[in-house]
């Protein structure tokens, strides 16, 4: 049933095509003008679609999440759960050991993850993280840098590959590298544990 109607459609289409073909043949000049106009239309619209503005994400930041391990007394296993820090202050420390003037996080409340900028012109980035306005730890990230070309409009950006991570153990128990590649792709790179 379906196939028959399909066949009919095909023949109808073919007739239609033949009519069109004959029309083109008999009215060559007219159809030339018509196709000319459509061509100019195509051409002009293709000219309008020129995008000169960058609309891509250009920042690659290190994302650090805070976790705590909770002991399940009945099974004896540890389960991981995100930890929300009541108050957090983060500062960068430059290669000479001086604290940077601008603060990355200033007494920010109830954060379970932070995003930090890694140094684009050095292989080491150091941060002081102050937990709950009392205890502070120093996070040191050793990384290599590589360039990524986005487009002519956006230019080039510098991404990072994490080599090693060091952290002091005042508030923090341990740190784990979850993802080595720090780029514009949103991912959690480091996990900091506190019990």
């Amino acid at each position, binding site marked *: 049933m379906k196939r028959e109607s399909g066949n009919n459609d095909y023949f109808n289409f*073919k007739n239609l095509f033949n009519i069109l073909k004959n029309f083109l*043949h008999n009215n060559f000049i007219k159809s*030339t003008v018509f196709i000319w106009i459509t061509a100019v239309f195509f051409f002009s619209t293709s000219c309008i679609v020129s995008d000169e503005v960058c609309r891509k994400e250009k920042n690659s930041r290190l994302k650090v999440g805070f976790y705590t391990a909770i002991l399940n007394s009945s099974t004896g296993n540890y389960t991981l759960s995100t930890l929300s820090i009541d108050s957090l202050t983060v500062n*960068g420390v*430059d290669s000479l050991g001086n604290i*940077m003037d601008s603060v990355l996080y200033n007494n920010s409340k109830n954060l379970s993850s932070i995003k930090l900028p890694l140094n*684009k012109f050095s292989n080491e980035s150091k941060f002081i993280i102050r937990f709950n306005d009392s205890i502070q730890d120093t996070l040191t990230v050793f990384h290599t840098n590589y360039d990524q*070309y986005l487009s*002519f409009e956006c*230019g080039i950006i510098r991404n990072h590959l994490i080599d090693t991570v060091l952290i002091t153990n005042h508030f923090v128990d341990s740190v784990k590298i979850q993802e080595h590649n720090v780029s514009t792709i949103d991912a959690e790179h480091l996990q900091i544990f506190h019990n």
Partner: protein
Amino acid sequence: MFQPSMQNIYRYFIISLLITVAVNFSAAQNKTAGSDKSSEVKWWNGFLVKMDVVSPVVTGFSDSEHFGMEGSVQFNLKRKIFPVYEIGFGGADKLSSNAIRFNTNGVFQRIGVDFGLLKQSNDKELINNMLTGGVRLGWSNFSYDLTNLSLSDDYWGGSQTLNFEGRSTTKTWYEIVVGIQVQVYKNLYMGWNIRNRHFFKEDTSGNIVPWYIPGYGKSGSSNTGFNYTIGYHF
């Protein structure tokens, strides 16, 4: 939701073109089975040397942002099959909104074939007017400069300017072409064609890529071009 983007329009355009070609071929096959009249057309019908008018005009309008010149030789076999060789020179010199400069020039070549899409006319006035559709294989070996790419670190401080000069590369692509050609006076022909271009292989993201490719145009997965030609028949 369906959005009528330019890409969709082109897609329908190409699909309808392919259907046109297919129907035409099936019609032609039916005919040869019935009678042998069409075989009277001889194989060699000379060749056409053509120059493109659009590229120099565009060069003028674009303030030499991009420029080009191209010509082609088209052979006429049986008034139905038209093998084509195209050669040209093109380039670009462009400054982006964030002061990046791109500069290139190079020679490009294309080979391909066009097919006559209309039934052969017996009318002497119309015999050399045709609607053609076909494909091209294009390639270009060229070198380019991408300069003044700036990198800066807003937090830690520091900045750097990167320059990539004299990078050479080869690009290949294919084109789907549809066009019209009219005999204006004795051996003088005029015609135009629209072409949809596609790369064979996409660029690896993250690497430095040229903004403009001679013979292809602005870099992108697909691209539409337009030629208006003046030709002489030998």
